[in-house]
């Protein structure tokens, strides 16, 4: 089983860290993992994305061109990356900032108000963790227990921060779980 996941957004939205936490969890789960950033030459702002691969087999190319799952945190990323998602893949859209709907019907799309959910946790900067939670719930790319462990380890020495990050992850996951149920009803 191989998950090829991309996170994309504005510089500063935390897409690189969301990807790092995902592969950290994958590594803790004993999988082969890779993480590869992509950004322009500017020091701040601009667009950023990262390719992550979680696999049972050794990983060849670390750059993902046809993601099995894609998270877009802003509108330019939707325009650029929607068409790259594999047929039957997952697309997660930050509906707080992206007012457009997905054009494709051959993929599973989830609308997650990442900024709003982050603000409900008290910090807009947690939007990336909301995104991560949604992604993991939608793809089951890594077991939740390892994701929690990764976050705890990354924020070791700052248990309060880790707690907030995890709360944001849970909100993102909950949003996808609810949408899935609503879809079946």
């Amino acid at each position, binding site marked *: 089983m191989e998950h090829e996941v991309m996170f994309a957004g504005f510089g500063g939205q935390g897409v690189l860290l969301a990807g*790092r936490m995902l592969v950290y969890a994958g590594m803790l789960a004993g999988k*082969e993992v890779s*993480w590869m950033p992509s950004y322009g030459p500017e020091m701040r702002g601009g667009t950023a994305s990262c390719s992550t691969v979680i696999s049972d087999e050794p990983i060849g190319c*670390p750059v993902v061109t046809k993601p099995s799952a894609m998270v877009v945190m802003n509108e330019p990323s939707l325009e650029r990356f929607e068409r790259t998602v594999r047929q039957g893949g997952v697309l997660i859209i930050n509906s707080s900032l992206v007012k457009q709907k997905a054009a494709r019907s051959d993929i599973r799309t989830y609308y997650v108000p990442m900024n709003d959910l982050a603000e409900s946790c008290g910090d807009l900067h947690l939007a990336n963790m909301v995104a991560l939670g949604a992604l993991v719930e939608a793809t089951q790319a890594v077991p939740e227990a390892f994701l929690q462990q990764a976050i705890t380890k990354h924020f070791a020495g700052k248990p309060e921060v880790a707690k907030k990050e995890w709360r944001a992850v849970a909100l993102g996951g909950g949003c996808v779980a609810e949408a899935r149920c609503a879809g079946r009803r």
Partner: protein
Amino acid sequence: MVEKVLMKGNEAIGEAALRAGCRYYFAYPITPQSELPEFMARELPKRGGVFLQAESEIASVNMVYGAAACGARAMTSSSSPGFSLKQEGISYLAAAELPCLLVNVQRGGPGLGTILPGQADYFQATKGGGHGDYRLLVLAPDSVQEMYDFTLLGFALADQYRMPALLLADGALGQMMEAVKLEGEPKPAPDKPWAVAGRRGREKLNVVQTLALDRDELEAHNRALQDKYALVRRNEVRYEALQTEDADLVLVAYGISARVAKSAMAKARAKGLKVGVFRPITLFPFPEEALFALAKQTNAFLVAEMSCGQMLEDVERVTCCQKPVHFYGRTGGHLTNVEELLERIEQIMAGKAVR
């Protein structure tokens, strides 16, 4: 058991350098290797070392000359355009037989090119980018783990043969994160009785220089260097051969392209195509005998690299026209693409490929 950690390739080089006892690192920032000077700026002072951001690449490579002449384990790093600037100093380091580790995290060229990955500095790395008859011991990692392992190895081999070693990586390996085991005992630096580190009761002064105006003296020095390179060719060839025993087609690739070649091989094998992968790990010394022998048993080669065909020339040279050598290359910052490579494999094996 050593726990795995998640690290960028550039950081893994820094961590390995520190463990190898490198306490002198001189560099000038350039993407996509800037995580390495960043790491060294943060970590070296903590471990009693010196990080100096030089005023230019040229200054930084000459600082390595100074530190290495004094017997210290020293390192510099850059990416393609910056590494070109270091070539004069590298020729001097080779001439003076100074052990050190050089790192080139290649990006796409020529000129200022792009900040994206490339593999078009193969000629410069293996054929002598500076002037004169010299060689570098060139190691080509294909994973973050090997960025770590080969940094340790590079320092050890440089000391063993008294020559500069070059870690030839690329922007993808430098920037990507993978799980790494930080293990393996670094070989401690040997005694360096030739170093400029105080007279210590010796009769003669140690002098490290490259000027030799006496014709016979310089020719003898050139012969001595060539003897050393011959020894390196004999002892230090490293490569990886995967499923080449029954292969009708052997992919030849190094570094990041070798990973893609391995993926393409798996996909081709799943379709019943007998494909193998040959990965040179040392680019100098090039695995000449192994490839020559392989040319006797396989039907064709396909060289894949992110250039317009540089290692290709070595594969053609050492296989001596025994079998066709095909080529697939991307440039401009594009990585070797697994689907394109697979398509090329299928064309060749269906006998439809135009060389």
